[in-house]
C-alpha cells in the first residue's frame, strides 16, 4: 500500500459512529461524543431556505446570498491562537436507509444533464430543481444529525481537520429575525467512493453552472460533520428582571440577583 493510501485510511477511519455515539480514535485513546439531531427551529429555517432558493432558481432570479447554505465554518489546529474561518457550502444527506434511493434520483439527474453542454442551464433547470426538491420534500428522510461539505482547496481547513477533527459552524439569517445557530461537530473525512460523498457531489453538480457558484471540478474529499452540540444564538431582547416568570419587569435597569435567561 502506498504512503498516501495509508495516510488516507488513517484519516478516514479514525471516526466511527455507532448507536448515536461518535468514537474518535486518538493517539492517547478513544474519545466519545453523543451526537444529536439539529433542533426543529433550525430544521424549519433550513427547509424554508431550500424551497425559497429553488423558487428563485426556478424563476432564474438573482440570488444575493444563500445564508442557509453558506455558514461560517471554524476549524483550528491544536496550537493555533485563532481559528481558521471560512464561508463554506454546507448541505444535508439522507439517512443511511434512504441514501440509495436519493442517490439514484440525484445521480440520474446528473447523468441526464451531462448529455448537454454545461452552459445549457436553462434547458436542464426543471430536471435539476425537481431532483433537489424531491429530497427536501421528505424531511423525515434526512439525517439531521450530520451535515456534508466538499473539500476543494486542501488548505487550512483540511490541515486543521487532519490534526484536530472538530469544527464549529455558524449560520446567520436575515433581518428582522437574524436566525443564528452555532453547531459544534466532530468531523469524519470521507473519500469519493462513499455514498455520502457521491450524494454531496451530485447535489453540487446539479447547480454547478448557475451564476451563484464558482465552477469547481476537483473535490478530493468530503466531510461529514457529526453534530454533538447546538447553541441557538438568535438575538432576543434581554430583560433585566428575573426571567423565569416570563414578565417584562424592567428591573429599573438592574439585573436581579440570580436572574436567569431561559433559552
Amino acid at each position, binding site marked *: 500500500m502506498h504512503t498516501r493510501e495509508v495516510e488516507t485510511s488513517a484519516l478516514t477511519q479514525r471516526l466511527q459512529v455507532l448507536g448515536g455515539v461518535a468514537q474518535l480514535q486518538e493517539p492517547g485513546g478513544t474519545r466519545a461524543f453523543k451526537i444529536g439531531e439539529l433542533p426543529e427551529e433550525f430544521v424549519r429555517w433550513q427547509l424554508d431556505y431550500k424551497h425559497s432558493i429553488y423558487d428563485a432558481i426556478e424563476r432564474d432570479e438573482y*440570488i444575493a446570498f444563500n445564508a442557509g447554505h453558506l455558514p461560517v465554518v471554524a476549524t483550528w489546529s491544536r496550537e493555533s491562537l485563532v481559528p481558521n474561518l471560512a464561508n463554506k457550502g454546507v448541505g444535508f444527506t439522507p439517512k443511511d436507509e434512504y441514501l440509495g434511493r436519493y442517490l439514484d434520483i440525484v445521480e440520474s439527474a446528473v447523468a441526464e444533464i451531462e448529455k448537454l453542454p454545461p452552459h445549457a442551464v436553462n434547458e436542464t433547470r426543471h430536471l435539476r430543481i425537481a431532483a433537489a426538491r424531491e429530497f427536501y420534500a421528505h424531511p423525515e428522510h434526512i439525517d439531521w444529525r450530520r451535515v456534508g461539505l466538499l473539500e476543494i482547496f486542501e488548505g487550512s481547513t483540511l490541515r486543521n481537520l487532519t490534526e484536530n477533527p472538530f469544527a464549529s459552524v455558524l449560520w446567520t439569517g436575515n433581518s428582522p429575525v437574524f436566525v443564528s445557530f452555532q453547531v459544534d461537530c466532530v468531523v469524519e473525512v470521507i473519500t469519493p467512493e462513499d455514498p455520502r460523498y457521491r450524494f454531496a457531489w451530485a447535489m453540487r453538480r446539479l447547480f454547478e453552472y448557475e451564476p451563484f457558484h464558482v465552477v469547481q471540478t476537483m473535490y478530493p474529499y468530503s466531510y461529514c460533520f457529526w453534530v454533538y452540540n447546538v447553541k441557538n444564538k438568535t438575538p432576543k431582547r434581554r430583560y433585566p428582571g428575573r426571567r423565569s416568570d416570563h414578565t417584562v419587569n424592567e428591573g429599573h435597569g438592574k439585573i436581579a440577583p440570580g436572574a436567569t435567561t431561559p433559552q
Partner: protein
Amino acid sequence: MTSAYVTRAILANFIARLDREFGRPGRLYLIGETTQVFEGWRPWTAHIEFTADIASEDRTAFSRVAEGLAAEFGVSTIEEWPGDVIPLPEGHEGRARGAAGATLQHLALYHFDPYSIAFRFIARGDEPDYHLVLTYLEHGWMTVEEMKERLTALLPRFTAETIQQDPAEFRRKYKGLLQMSETVRARATHRSTRV
C-alpha cells in the same frame, strides 16, 4: 425525529376523520399555515394548528380523537386559542371565514380571523411567522391599512407583564414586517432583490 410535512391531502384526511370519529357538533378553526395549506397557498406545514369550540362535556373525547389521529398520521398538532397569548382585536369572531370545499357531517370548519392570527404570530416573531403574514397580505385576506387600524386600537391593550406581549418588541417586529412587505415576496427566505 423530524416529522413528514403536513400537505393538503394529509390535512383534508385528518379533518374528515376527526369529523367522523368525533361525531359531535362543534366549530373547528384552522390557524395560520394550516389555513394556508388548506387554501392551497403553500404546499406544506410542519404542524396541524387549530382551535376548537366544543361543548365542555365533549372536550375530552375531542382531544382523545385528535391525539389519536395525530399519532396515526405521524404528524404533530398544536391546539391553541390565540386569545391566550395576546388580546384579540375587536370583531375577530365575525372575521372568521368558512372553509370552502370541506363537506363535514358534524363539525363546522372555519379559518380563524387572519388579523388575530397575524398579530399573534408577529408577537412570536420567528422567521416563518413573518412569511405567514406576508402570505395573508399577498392573497388579499388582509390589508396593511386595516392591519394598522386594528393595531392602533389593540396595542394599548398589550401588557408589559408578559414577554409575549412586550409592546416595544412587538412594535419593532411589526415595523420589520412592514418593511418586508414592501421589499420581499412571501416565502422568499433568502436574501433577494426587491419585488
